[in-house]
């Protein structure tokens, strides 16, 4: 079969185009791997290793600090027995006020969790750090005496931030579900919780059942003591 020259050129162009198209479709079926020794991956791995090492240090330092605080408190209590004029009671009251003691009492237990079909493409199904900040703010405005999130005591300087897929509370990584305990006047706290204007975004997602929210009243909650540091490197009494 003999083709005219223009037809041959069109045929060649069509074949090349078809080849490129088939090549793209075929290759797209396979996932390309980033080479293990790429600079970017090395950098990310190094950062993650560093984070892991700091987190391990932190965990061990916190355990050590808790033990030391307990030993010191025991010594101070012994001193109180032998010296009635010591200021141990003042110290203990201050410790309670800044969150260094376990608090027991009635309050609310709130469970906040990602929606069932949570994925990274639909943010509204996920619990964000801002949601926890808003909720803690509500509890504080409701005059809660003590608050904790997944065992982390919330104090005035507590920070709640998003890092990757987890949430950092007191620089500790937490993941959904989040159990929030709040000891205080239940009526006052519930008044604040019922004000949907105070947390419109989260309230809307709870109402639409995009995220899970369970609220229970409890008579005997236990909120743990703050187990991290209070930095006073830059601050001094005026």
């Amino acid at each position, binding site marked *: 079969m003999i083709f005219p020259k223009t037809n041959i050129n069109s045929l060649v162009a069509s074949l090349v185009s078809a080849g490129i198209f088939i090549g793209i479709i075929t290759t797209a079926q396979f996932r390309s791997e*980033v080479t293990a020794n*790429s600079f970017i991956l090395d950098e990310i791995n190094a950062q993650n290793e560093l984070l892991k090492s700091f987190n391990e240090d932190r965990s061990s330092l916190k355990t050590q600090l808790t033990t030391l605080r307990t030993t010191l408190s025991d010594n101070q209590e012994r*001193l109180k027995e032998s010296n009635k004029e010591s*200021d141990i009671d003042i110290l203990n009251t201050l410790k309670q006020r800044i969150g260094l003691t376990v608090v027991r009492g009635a309050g609310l237990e709130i469970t906040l969790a990602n929606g069932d079909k949570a994925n990274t493409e639909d943010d509204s199904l996920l619990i964000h750090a*801002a949601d926890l900040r808003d909720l803690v703010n509500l509890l504080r405005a*409701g005059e809660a005496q003590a608050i904790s999130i997944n065992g982390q005591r919330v104090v005035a300087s507590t920070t709640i931030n998003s890092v990757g897929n987890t949430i950092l509370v007191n620089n500790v990584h937490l993941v959904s579900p989040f159990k929030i305990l709040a000891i205080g006047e239940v009526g006052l706290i519930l008044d604040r919780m019922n004000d949907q204007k105070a947390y419109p975004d989260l309230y809307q997602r709870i109402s639409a059942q995009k995220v899970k929210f369970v609220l229970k009243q409890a008579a005997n909650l236990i909120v743990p003591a703050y187990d991290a540091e*209070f930095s006073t490197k*830059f601050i001094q009494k005026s």
Partner: protein
Amino acid sequence: MKHTSQIGMIVIGLTVGVLFTMQARTYTDITTLYQRENKVNIFREIQVLKDSNDSLRDESNSIKEQLAKGFNKEEALKNIKAEIEKNMIIAGDVDVKGEGIKLILDGNIPSFWFVDITNEMFSTGAEAVSINGQKLADWNIGFDTLPNGQILVGENILSAPYTFEAIGNKKILLETLKQSGGILNRLRDNLPKVKFSIEAYNDITITKAVA
């Protein structure tokens, strides 16, 4: 001969297609990695953890020193006084001073921005924060927006302009709050009418928290 060149063209086309797509897929993977590993956050997290661990170590060492001195009554009483003084500073019972920053925001600002700004300040190492002279403490740190736009902090009503004062490492506080994608950037994007200024100071004084 013609068939050979046609087959050759198809092979070249396939090869170009394969190479093009491999390149595109590899680039996409790298971009996704970058997006997932937010550099600003991971570097900040490393810095915050490092500082935080240093503080934990300092506090542990201080208690160890106290315990190492044994059960000396005089020494123990002195340590109790020092601990009371430190805890009074943390509780907001005394006036405090130190280097830090002053942030002034003028405009109508919803209360959640106050939550986020103070969270950002504490995340950046602030050791004490006040708004319009009201020191934030455990008992007064809940924010609420009143119907007329004023902000309720504890039992105090605040009106614009809002002056945030934070004591801490002034350089880190200033750089972090002002950084691209940081809290002030986000505030400006969301509330373009709000005017703000931020400056570092060698000596900021925050008066004790008052009901």
